[in-house]
């Protein structure tokens, strides 16, 4: 992490959140069934301190003009965990996740209510520098979208350039990010090549590496694998597993198996014609073995209606 020293000093809330994360999704009491996942969690929160307290969404509502797309969603994302958001198309998963790093507001007519707490501070507070928020809450999109006019290496560092941050040792940072994104070995000999020459899966990992370079606390992923083949998908899932050791990850996915594989917690959204609501959240093991809500059960087991 040495390469990040300068960056860290930018994030002004660095010292205050050294307490152990106590934010936990609701039914998080450890169960015998969830041992595997519990093990994972243990791996992932070594000292817990550098990860902060994660992210908390409180009573989030989101509108498109007059249309309420997401209603009253409260979710805590504990530091160092992977939370999957699942639900049928149009239930507001993307809308919700985009309120978490203030990308929602790019849509003309968009409005929201509620709070999103990053290390206890509302990111929607007046006077907040939104670009700094987005530096701390990275995002990976559905379609791999590296900047085609840049080389692979430049892409990794593009976040620094965009946010006009200085970093002492670019090469180290580049290697570290590519390493963490699981791409280093594949591209180390052609960092100067154009990013367009990579395969879809590699491009997506490059996008992940790009997000990592600004050292975010939280990484949002909106269907990051839906444009990829199964091989690349598994590769990305593996990367997610690795990343979760050092950050909080929230992933939207249509692929139930993917949610089952990669996440520690799963939240199920449903819209029922009206706005999207949170139906159930819990450890992934429980959601996929003994969901509490019948609608969750119907959804995860592929039953509808």
């Amino acid at each position: 992490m040495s390469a990040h020293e300068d960056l860290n000093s930018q994030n002004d809330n660095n010292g205050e959140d050294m307490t152990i994360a106590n934010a936990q999704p609701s039914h998080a009491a450890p169960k015998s069934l969830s041992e595997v996942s519990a093990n994972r969690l243990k791996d992932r929160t070594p000292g817990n301190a550098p990860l902060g307290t994660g992210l908390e969404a409180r009573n989030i509502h989101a509108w498109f003009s007059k249309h309420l797309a997401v209603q009253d969603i409260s979710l805590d994302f504990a530091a160092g965990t992977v939370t999957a958001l699942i639900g049928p198309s149009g239930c507001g998963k993307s809308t919700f996740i985009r309120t978490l790093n203030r990308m929602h507001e790019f849509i003309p007519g968009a409005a929201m209510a509620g709070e999103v707490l990053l290390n206890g501070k509302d990111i929607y507070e007046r006077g907040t520098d939104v670009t700094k928020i987005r530096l701390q809450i990275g995002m990976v999109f559905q379609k791999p979208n590296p900047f085609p006019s840049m080389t692979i290496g430049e892409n990794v560092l593009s976040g620094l350039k965009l946010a006009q941050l200085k970093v002492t040792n670019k090469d180290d940072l580049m290697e570290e990010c590519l390493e963490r994104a699981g791409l280093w070995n594949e591209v180390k000999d052609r960092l100067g090549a154009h990013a367009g020459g990579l395969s879809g899966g590699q491009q997506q990992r490059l996008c992940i590496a790009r997000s990592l370079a600004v050292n975010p606390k939280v990484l949002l992923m909106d269907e990051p694998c839906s444009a990829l083949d199964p091989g690349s998908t598994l590769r990305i899932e593996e990367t997610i597993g690795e990343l979760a050791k050092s950050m909080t990850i929230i992933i939207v996915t249509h692929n139930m198996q993917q949610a089952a594989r990669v996440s520690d917690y799963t939240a199920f959204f449903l819209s029922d014609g009206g706005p999207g609501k949170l139906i159930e959240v819990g450890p992934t093991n429980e959601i996929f073995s003994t969901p509490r809500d019948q609608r969750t059960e119907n959804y995860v087991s592929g039953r509808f209606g």
Partner: protein
Amino acid sequence: MPLIRSVFQDELDGVSQTLLDLTAMVCTAISEATTSVLNRDLTIAEKVIETDDRIDDMQHELDGRIITIIARQQPVATDLRALVTALRMSADLERMGDMAHHVAKITRMRHPETAIPTELIALIKNMGETALAIATKMGQVIATRNVDLALEVERDDDEMDQLHRQLISTLIAPQWSHGVESAIDLTLLGRYYERFADHAVSVSRRVHFLVTGNYS
């Protein structure tokens, strides 16, 4: 919107049906095994032994089918539990068939003698009937997933244990006059009925897991 997944549902239903078929075969087997041992009827005994082979085949086929369904449909939650439960139930049912087989084998071993002294005929008959009753009730539990009925099966099993104890005390009583060999036969016979009932209880308990997702 109608239920989608009709193929999968058909397959699940098929699995349940096979379990019920197996149950029916097991019921017939135990009832006939009892008859054979009480009546020294070798023909029926042979039939039971043969039935057990069919039960074994059916169980293998069912297990293969369940694995295929899991591989092809990749179920989760209740569906997955139902299949895994069926996999375990089939093993229990197969063991129940084995027990009937063992009973029938005692008939065959002692033929043309009888294995059962006259004073124990009533008791063994009672054990046989209880076993049948338990197996029948178990079938209903499988069909209805009724957790309360499953408790009744456990109560019936207590009755079986009671009969078993009664049998053993008869054997070790000083009045026992049929020799060690007969006592050994009857010990094993008793144990077969008792294990038969145990497996039925085990099947019923699995329904509890199926419904709630927890081991009770």
